[in-house]
């Protein structure tokens, strides 16, 4: 349950196959666009963010993490009505942060993953709202209650999703 500090040598580094690297983010963005039409409550989840965190923590490479985050975020941005870059910037930061923590912490257990996803969701939202309101001038309302509820929901879904994605991981 506790997040344990480990040395670089102790940490396992994984990679994903090329099909998984391309298809999983695509599937995440597709499901994120399609599922809310059928299940309206699903819009509180952020599947692309969970995939970004999962990839970043598994690969434990800051470069891979930030580029994965940037690409998934920009792809997600392109499907929205807002300027491209808002999700891109947020997910770049999260990808970099998750991979940085992945190097230093053992994030293989469910408790650590739950806590990290919760924190990274809030970080993602803070960055997003800061850029949206400060730079782009978009009117976006922030409610702590809603954001924390969403963070918790995403954290629980994240734990399930990471367990599924673990099956596709390959040890380097």
């Amino acid at each position, binding site marked *: 349950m506790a997040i344990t500090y480990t040395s670089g040598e102790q940490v396992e580094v994984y990679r994903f196959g090329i099909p998984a690297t391309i298809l999983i983010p695509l599937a995440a963005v597709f499901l994120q*666009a*399609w599922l809310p039409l059928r299940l309206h409550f699903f*819009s509180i989840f952020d599947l692309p963010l969970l995939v970004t965190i999962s990839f970043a923590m598994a690969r434990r490479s800051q470069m891979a993490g930030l580029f994965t985050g940037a690409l998934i975020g920009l792809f997600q941005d392109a499907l*929205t009505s*807002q300027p*491209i870059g808002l999700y891109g910037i947020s997910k770049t930061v999260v990808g970099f942060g998750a991979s940085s923590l992945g190097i230093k912490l053992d994030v293989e257990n469910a408790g650590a993953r739950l806590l990290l996803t919760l924190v990274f969701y809030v970080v993602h939202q803070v960055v997003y709202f800061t850029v949206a309101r400060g730079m782009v001038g978009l009117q976006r*309302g922030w409610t702590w209650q809603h954001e924390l509820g969403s963070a918790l929901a995403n954290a629980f879904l994240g734990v399930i999703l990471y367990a599924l994605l673990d099956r596709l991981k390959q040890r380097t």
Partner: protein
Amino acid sequence: MESVLGRYRNLIVLVGVLFIQVLGLAVQVRRSTDTDSSRLIRVWAVTAISPFEKTLVWVQTASGNLWHNYFYLRGVRAENRELKQEIEQMRIEQARMSQDADQARRLQALLAFKEQFISQTKAAQVIGSSGSEQSRSIYIDKGENDGIRPDMAVITADGVVGKILHVYRSTSLVLLISDQSSGVGAILEKSRLQGILRGMASGEIGMEKVMSDEHVPAGEVVLTSGGDRIFPKGLPLGRVTRVAPGSDLFLNIQVKPAANLSKLEEVLVVTKIDERQATPEQTGPVRAADILAERLPTVPPKPPDASAAVSPTAGQVPAAGAAPKPAQVKPKTVAPANGLAGSSPVASKPTTSSPAGDSVSEKPAADNAVVKATPKVEKPAEAPTQPPAQDPPQ
């Protein structure tokens, strides 16, 4: 120097990637329309996603149709019977409403009132969404190839959904009225107060710019005002659910959208709006007195021989002939007063062209005419048949 760069290589790359994205955002913000600067990325993303969405929606619709049209037909006969009854009732209602519409058109023409008519729509299926709470928008399966253009209104039978924001070859992005960046010119149905309908962070919609000293009751219907030049006037937007005093001079009005924005499957894109002056079927101005005079029964013209035979009698009875004259004049002098008092219902009846409409609502109007005119008009018909009036000269 090299060691420093190598040490902070990842951080430098992070800053560089963020800087490029910030720069891209700045370019998009600077240009009022971001369609040019970011269009290529959007086209790629939509092209990658929309085929899957279309396929999935097609499979879902096909399987749904198979089930509903071939397997699940329980209760269809009873439903059909009920629907037929409903159609009959609606026909009657339609006939009545067509008369009201005719009347409204004539009155609008009198006021030189220009109105917008939805003359062409295109049905489209919803295939996806932006998938974000921060951007409330949906994708439809019609695009440039189908004649869709940006800023076209998107509606359902229940009310307004949104407007077309981006158009691609075979898909389009629709900005919902619940999005925080959307704004629709709105008017309250009864109080005629105007404002702007905007999406809120919570996903609800609210009406802005209504002064706090105005009274807005909950439950009042909100319609499009037509002031935004996108949505035709008079389309239902929603219903007021809550009114609270705002922080500024304006009220906080919460509105429940008329269209169910969370369960959209098919929508209509308004592809053509005609703006024309209402043209009544009658040409030229018509006075209420003239209309009423037309409706009153008149003495039928008599055949020449009969008039010749009667003429001496008529000439012989100046006293009796004097009686009908005021009786004929009397309705005409009374008519304008009647016509003005209840001008609209009476004036509208003669010009209706719908046969069904005549059969439904002409009746009470005709009854009215009979009630008012009969006692006065029957007098001249009776006068010649009165034996005492003809006998004395013989």
